[in-house]
């Protein structure tokens, strides 16, 4: 029941409201797209659209998907950046030490998953709230990186010593499509399947919605929460591998740059979905929305420092949109 019913509200046909409610994100995306196409002549060029995908989308999409798994069980993962960093550090260090790229990559994934497993122990084992547990991991992770790098020195790969496979991962392309974008697409697809079609995904969403009912249904809720956080670490590690392969360097704590945008994209996707549930397509559209706004504002020649104002306004606009459409739908 809504507290207030607006009997005198202008009557928009219910069908139209339905379309808006069900496709709020897509409509928001089209609007932003249209605005920037008009505002900047360079926005709607192939080169720029490619640049959005490569620079503003690929890595953030993967990290935001990691975040979505943590959010799906009703938590949050403030240490996704830590998993990115640990994966990147393991990957670059082992390649530097002459290990095969495949071995180094696996170690990188393992390092990310280990960050997730550490969170899982804190959250499911000890019972610390996800927010505090992952905040602790974030701080500890920063310190460890400082210690490992003598106070924060980057680990460079010498230009001569970069294996072909490493270069391919970061800069390669298959049929003209950049490898990082392909990896992002695979991650998106896999995560979508897990969250919507696998039993794990169903249970995870149920936990996020009402944990006690899941427990009272005889399901080991804590184990599922643990898996969700390990998955988050593992997926963030994929972004860590791509990041270091692209820039051929590991810079301590660089992964934390993704954190706030990943949270933003995940909650934009959740807020604007019909049922208000965390979902991968929503998260991906949220990443695109943030990416387009960042890119578009840059192209309009606005001072760089204004960019985050744009992001903030975007989030308010999303909230307003969801509030209005929901009220209309339930009126």
């Amino acid at each position, binding site marked *: *029941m809504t*507290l*207030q*019913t607006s*009997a005198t509200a202008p009557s928009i046909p219910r069908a139209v409201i339905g379309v808006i409610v069900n496709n709020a994100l897509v409509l928001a995306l089209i609007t932003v797209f249209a605005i920037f196409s008009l505002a900047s002549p360079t926005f709607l060029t192939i080169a720029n659209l490619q640049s959005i995908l490569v620079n503003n989308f690929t890595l953030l999409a993967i990290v935001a998907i990691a975040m979505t798994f943590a959010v799906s069980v009703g938590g949050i993962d403030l240490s996704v950046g830590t998993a990115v960093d640990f994966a990147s550090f393991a990957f670059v260090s082992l390649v530097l030490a002459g290990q095969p790229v495949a071995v180094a990559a696996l170690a990188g994934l393992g390092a990310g998953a280990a960050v997730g497993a550490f969170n899982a122990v804190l959250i499911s084992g000890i019972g610390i709230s996800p927010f505090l547990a992952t905040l602790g991991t974030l701080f500890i992770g920063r310190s460890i990186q400082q210690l490992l790098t003598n106070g924060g020195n980057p680990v460079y790969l010498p230009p001569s010593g970069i294996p072909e496979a490493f270069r391919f991962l970061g800069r390669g392309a298959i049929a003209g499509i950049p490898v990082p974008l392909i990896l992002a697409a695979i991650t998106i697809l896999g995560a979508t*399947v897990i969250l919507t*079609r*696998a*039993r*794990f995904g*169903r*249970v995870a969403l*149920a936990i996020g*919605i*009402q944990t*006690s*009912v*899941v*427990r*009272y*249904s*005889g*399901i*080991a809720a804590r184990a599922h929460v643990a898996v969700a956080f390990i998955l988050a670490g593992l997926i963030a590690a994929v972004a860590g591998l791509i990041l270091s392969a692209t820039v051929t360097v590991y810079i301590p704590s660089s992964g934390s740059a993704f954190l706030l945008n990943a949270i933003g994209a995940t909650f934009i996707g959740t807020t604007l979905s019909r*049922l*208000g549930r965390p979902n991968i397509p929503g998260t991906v559209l949220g990443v695109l929305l943030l990416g387009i706004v960042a890119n578009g504002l840059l192209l309009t020649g606005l001072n760089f420092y204004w960019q985050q104002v744009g992001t903030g306004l975007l989030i308010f606009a999303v909230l307003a949109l969801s509030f209005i459409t929901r009220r209309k739908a339930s009126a």
Partner: protein
Amino acid sequence: MSAALPDETGDAIHLDRIVKRFDGALALNHASLRVRRGTVHGLVGQNGAGKSTLIKLLAGLHQPDEGRIEIDGQAYDRLTPHRVEELGIHFIHQDRLLVPTFTVGEALFLGREPRITGTPFLDRRLMQRRASEILDDYFGVKLPNSALISELSTAEKQIVQITRALLDQPKVLVFDEPTAALVRREADILFRLIRRLRDEGVTIIYISHYLNEIEELCDTVTILRNGEDVATLPLGETSAAAIARLMVARDIADMFPKRSVTLGKDILSLDHLSSHGKYQDISLTLRRGEVLGLTGLLGSGAKDLIRTLFGLETATSGQIEIDGQPARSANPAQAVDRHLALVPEDRRGNGVALDLSVTENITLSSLKRFTRLGFLDFNGERSEADDLIRRLEIKASGRNALVRTLSGGNQQKVAIAKWLSRHSEVYLLDEPTVGVDIGSKVEIYNLIGDLAARGAGIIVLSSDLAELIGITDRILVLFRGSIIREFVSSRTSPDDVLAASTGSSEVLRHVG
């Protein structure tokens, strides 16, 4: 409040031929409610009869499409919740929220905190003192002022709510299902309070599914059915049975449709089960096809016993066996694997997930059956849901409807359907019909009969003694952690069971 009272016999509230539509559906069809000042006026009706719509109109949460609302003889066009409160009308809701991390004193004065004179600072000491004065005067209880709301029992939370309303010296108090979560003794305290308020001149509107309460407490009762007021009767001239007939237009004789089932083998047995400080030395046997009643006051240990069986608590000593196998469960997952099912009292908290669909709720516990290589078999889930929706006559707009949109009775059917899907064999039903309308109650009783007939063992924990006697074979009464009496349901009365559960000669503690 110094508002002069007009003539003593006038109407405090008069809702006159109210019509209200939602999305074209008629919720109220020229329904009237006329409440005389200084009386306790009952309002009854099945879910969907229009009770809550009528009350929301009075609260200013909805506006009527047609009809008049008069308060103290004065007609009001557009009521707002704020205006209603100014007029001295207050509402006590069953699930109205109190901030759980506030202390009793803070919760009582939320939004009207007394200040230390001349400063913006809260006068905590004054808050706490006034709170305990009111609590002591009206309820004769002392709640530790610094106690957190989250530490209080349901009954105590309700006392805090009522006290909050009393601070405003209300003219009209509306109680919406106030006893749903109270045991009999706690309800008695509430009834004494209501009578005292009436004698002090407060007008009471009392909404309840429990007709015996209406019979006991009210001066007049209005019965709603299908959005119309089918009758308004003085209680002296009617009975609970007559009221029930008017509500459902069906005879009360088939209210408790107990089926006779031939009992099978033992399915569950407890042997000297004890949990320190909660219950001691509980031994009992449940047979297939048997419906066993369990009752006791708050703190009798009955609830803890049920929780132990389902793995939510652990026993300190003793044995549990299911089908002859040891079955002490460390967690619900183990219990469920042993074919135990719990339909918990807190339906909306633990029984169903309100924001999952009917299908998702029904298959939640049995998801493994609908999984192939880790992936969900949507078709299998759909046909399972459709099957159970049909069998249990769950009324929902579809299998994808969120459970939030269902009535209490239908939510409860979903909570039971979940275990039918899991093929459970021992059902623990904790207050299975709390907050459920009469029509759905009968359907749930029938369902319990069906389960027994199919060879399940059923334990029903209920504080509605008429219900307990009506649907069970045997009743065990717990008192201070021990089984003190066993009754054969067909040969006992609510009075006998009640006497046993209060420990007859024992002097009892106060509320909570």
